[in-house]
């Protein structure tokens, strides 16, 4: 069976788009072929800076003929209707067949669809693919109307069978298909004629083009590590950079260069970032000292002087770049070590907008500092130090280095805070307060860092909640989901018990205050103090709002009063939703989490997680799973009885009214369980409490097997219902089991 080879040859395709484009080419072409009836055995796609290529092997030479049947009008339908049907189906009256159906005699048309040659189908599918290609950004050029990522120059499209290669004739916007391509832009620019995929790959290689991106990456990595190793050095791993560089060259030639001595004193991260971002260089490290001493660059060609000119040029450009970096580093250090120190930078942040409704960066820092101080005791940090750390944590945003390399924010803060003489814990917080940045990023564990990191995220969340900028669907421009996950991970992974409600409430008021000029600082302080004592739901909140009534615009009062408690609850459920995602990844079911969220104190996420894990573990055991059944049975009977009788059975089950052994046994089991569960709950040892609960499964099942709750004897019935109530109370001490599936 024939093979198909396609190459789309263009001006340089951005490196970051190449891999995806090759995948899209394969998907669009093969889907199109299959849809038209051309099945195939295998396919593979490739990309270089100037070409996308696709090989399809074992493709049908033509699509199979098919007979389609189409249902028409009734046989006795008006002539006009029948004619219309014939026209639509493109058949004549001879192709119609009358068939008896439950609805009467119906006409059916047989439409013969003859097979079509592959060339015809391929031409159509390729043209459609080129015209509808999903480039992230595309452009027009010259006089044309076609859009491609950069000007498209030629289309190679051949079908290869035993008889040889045949060009699939087609054209798009004046570009005609053929069987030729070109080699490397400088090393082998001549046209080459291609007879098959193997021929294509081999001839390209002779023309100094490595077709496969992974082969180029392998060559680069292999040569780079060898070269570094020969000098007793190692290349700093960077998969992203390797992929990018592989997309910038067709004929990779690895060269290792020197970094001038002047620059070796720069922080390694600065060297690395500058070399990577500006020059796409790999960093080469001395494993003994950990210092970056050289670089590796990848040229796109060989030269007569073995790259000496190219390397000299690159070294020179790097020196100019690093001279800038060194200039920034030295200027910044001078500021950090000056008398005013990093405060100069914080002052400058008074002119930098964080968000137009949430004030400047300086105001954000102020809110963050207050919250850090308040959170400090909850995470074992010194409040004064936490506040101090929060005040310098973002100072580096004004530094020249971070202005030039935004990705070094935090890290530079740490260097500068150290230089300014801050304690290590404060300096570390400058770097770590941004963490964790992703689900696998490390969580800060130092107390001061934890306080500031939590404050940074809670302030961000409450701020955007206060101004109604919540994430919706796939839109989360301020990365609030990431901030929420950060809060969760810092608390849970450090086993920190923090009642979030009052911190969220307080920070919401501070952020609301930011958004409204007429709320002055004294009032905010009053409100925050009330919230600290009573939480946002407290009547005290409303009392203070009443007090504020005569100084505030009524609209503002309304906003604070109605929105703060509401938004606080809304933000907490957002955190709960993110917690579900976080725990689901760890194998905890959502109904288990719901059962725990239903318990009081659900604003303490660590407590919530402990409940959920204990319940989840118990549910994995046989007893645990069946306990749910028993509990639900007890709960249903009890609820129905309570509804029917209009009373609550919650007290006074007495063993003396117990009639059967099973009933007596359940009393004893409940006594025994309570004796274990109560102290365990005191210690928040939910695992012990849950296993004690699971042991009730046997007695509960035995009870229900032997005993009819609704006895004719009213006393006995009441006693049994009160007994069920004990089951309910005990079984809902860790979580609301009624919400657990099963």
């Amino acid at each position, binding site marked *: 069976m024939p093979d198909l080879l396609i190459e789309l040859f263009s*001006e*340089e395709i*951005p*490196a*970051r788009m190449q891999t995806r484009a090759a995948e899209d080419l394969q998907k669009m072409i093969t889907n199109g072929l299959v849809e038209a009836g051309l099945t195939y055995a295998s396919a593979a796609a490739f990309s270089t*800076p100037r070409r996308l290529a696709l090989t399809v092997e074992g493709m049908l030479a033509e699509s199979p003929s098919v007979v389609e049947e189409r249902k028409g009008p009734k046989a006795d339908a008006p002539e006009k209707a029948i004619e219309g049907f014939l026209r639509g189906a493109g058949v004549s009256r001879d192709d119609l067949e009358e068939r008896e159906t439950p609805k009467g005699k119906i006409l059916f048309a047989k439409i013969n669809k003859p097979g079509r040659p592959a060339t015809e189908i391929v031409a159509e599918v390729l043209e459609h693919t080129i015209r509808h290609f999903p480039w992230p*950004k*595309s*452009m*027009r*050029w*010259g*006089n044309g109307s076609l859009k491609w*990522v*950069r*000007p498209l*120059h030629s289309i190679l499209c051949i079908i290869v069978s035993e008889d040889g290669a045949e060009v699939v004739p087609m054209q798009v916007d004046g570009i005609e298909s053929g069987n030729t391509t070109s080699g490397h832009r*400088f090393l082998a620019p001549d046209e080459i004629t291609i007879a098959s995929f193997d021929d294509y790959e081999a001839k390209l290689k002779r023309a100094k083009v490595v077709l496969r991106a992974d082969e180029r990456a392998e060559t680069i990595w292999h040569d780079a590590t060898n070269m570094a190793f020969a000098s007793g050095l190692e290349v700093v791993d960077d998969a992203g950079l390797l992929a990018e560089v592989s997309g*910038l*060259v067709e004929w990779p030639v690895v060269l290792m260069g020197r970094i001038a001595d002047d620059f070796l004193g720069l922080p390694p991260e600065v060297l690395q970032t500058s070399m990577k971002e500006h*020059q796409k*260089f790999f960093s080469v490290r001395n494993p003994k000292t950990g210092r970056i001493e050289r670089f590796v*660059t990848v*040229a*796109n*060609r060989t*030269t*007569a*002087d073995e790259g000496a*000119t*190219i390397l*000299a*040029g*690159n070294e*020179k*450009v*790097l020196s*100019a770049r690093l*001279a800038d970096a060194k200039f920034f580093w030295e200027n910044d250090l001078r500021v950090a070590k000056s008398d005013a120190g990093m405060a100069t930078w914080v002052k400058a942040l008074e*002119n*930098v*907008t964080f968000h*137009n409704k949430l004030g400047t960066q300086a105001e954000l820092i102020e809110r963050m500092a207050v919250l850090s101080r308040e959170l400090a005791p909850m995470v074992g940090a010194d409040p004064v130090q936490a506040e101090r750390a929060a005040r310098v944590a973002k100072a580096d945003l004004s530094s020249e280095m971070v202005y030039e390399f935004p990705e070094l924010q935090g890290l530079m803060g740490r260097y500068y805070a150290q230089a300014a003489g801050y304690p290590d814990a404060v300096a570390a917080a400058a770097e770590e307060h941004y963490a964790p940045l992703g689900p696998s990023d490390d969580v800060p564990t130092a107390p001061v860092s934890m306080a500031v990191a939590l404050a940074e995220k809670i302030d961000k969340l409450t701020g955007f909640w206060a101004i109604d900028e919540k994430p919706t669907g796939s839109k989360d421009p301020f990365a609030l989901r990431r901030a929420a996950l950060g809060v969760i991970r810092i608390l849970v992974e450090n086993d920190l018990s923090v009642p979030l409600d009052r911190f969220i409430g307080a920070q919401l008021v501070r952020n609301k205050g930011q958004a409204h000029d007429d709320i002055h600082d004294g009032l905010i302080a009053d409100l925050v103090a009330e919230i600290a004592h009573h939480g946002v739901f407290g009547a005290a909140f409303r009392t203070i709002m009443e007090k504020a009534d005569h100084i505030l615009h009524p609209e503002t009062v309304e906003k604070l009063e109605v929105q703060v408690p509401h938004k606080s609850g809304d933000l907490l459920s957002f955190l709960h939703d993110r917690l579900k995602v976080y725990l689901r990844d760890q194998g905890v079911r959502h109904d288990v989490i719901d059962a725990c969220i239903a318990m009081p104190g659900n604003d303490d996420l660590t407590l919530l997680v402990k409940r959920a894990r204990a319940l989840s573990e118990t549910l994995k055991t046989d007893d645990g799973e069946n306990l749910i059944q028993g509990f639900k049975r007890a709960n249903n009977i009890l609820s129905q009885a309570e509804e029917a009788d209009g009373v609550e059975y919650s007290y006074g089950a007495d063993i003396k009214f117990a009639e059967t052994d099973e009933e007596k046994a359940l009393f004893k089991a409940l006594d025994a369980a309570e004796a274990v569960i109560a102290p365990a709950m005191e210690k928040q040892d939910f695992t012990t409490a849950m296993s004690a609960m699971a042991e009730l499964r046997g007695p509960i099942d035995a009870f229900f097997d032997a005993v009819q709750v609704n006895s004719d004897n009213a006393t006995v019935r009441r006693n049994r219902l009160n007994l069920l109530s004990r089951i309910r109370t005990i079984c809902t001490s860790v979580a609301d089991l009624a919400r657990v599936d099963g």
Partner: protein
Amino acid sequence: MSKTPEKPRSFQSIILALQNYWAAQGCAVLQPYDMEVGAGTFHPATTLRSLGTQPWAAAYVQPSRRPTDGRYGENPNRLQHYYQYQVLIKPSPPNLQELYLGSLEAIGIDMEMHDIRFVEDDWESPTLGAWGLGWEVWCDGMEVSQFTYFQQVGGHDCHPVSGELTYGLERLAMYVLGVDHVMDMPFNDPGSPIELTYADVFKQTEEEYARWNFDTANTEVLLRQFEEAEAHCKAILDQPAVDPKTGKRIIMAHPAYDQCIKASHMFNLLDARGVISVTERQAYIGRVRTLAKMCADAFVQTRAGGWTEDAA
């Protein structure tokens, strides 16, 4: 490929080589626009001529001013006044990359010895309401040019598309001549009876302008001039298409555009004086863009912009 010519010896010989090369490729070699602009793109030969359907091919040097980049002539490669070499061809020819590479050879870059790369770099000018796709061109890791296919200018889609090449002349020349500090670069031939370096020509002006740009320029005057230019631009475009004196259809797109250029430069000066806050910045850029769009709208109503009696 053609034989690599003699290595140039001075800044001006590189400029002359580019002028000769692009003249040989059929470009009209224009002279710099006689107004202060931030980049060669602002020259009406690019901004306005990239609009409409009329074919165009022009090359020119454009002195460019970026007040905030002034360093009193001390920084090895930052200047508040520098030269750009600009080429604009409409429609972009299919061999524009080859033509461009030819220009590098013309200034003495040996294609056999260097590593030339086209690295993704999309261009956008918020003040001109313009964007395009293309690359920065690297020679041995050094950015030597910007290469852009214009997609939109002044809010208008470009049909046909222009290809634009911009060379930062000082930087490119320093590279070719092997000079580390711009001020050390020979301006005329080192063997000339009166040898002049870049410093001899520009060191003093860099100092003078840096002082003026950063500390002395009267911001009230600048602000007033910005607003006057803005008002003037609009007033020009408000005039009827037919000139009452000659009875001819004369839309004054260019005079209006001069006022747009002026407003843009006043904004750059105000920015350098540090009197524009982050939020105000966007608003000023928006005001200049509005002018640029109005001028573009006007230009496409002129003959050079593709307007014809029949189409009207």
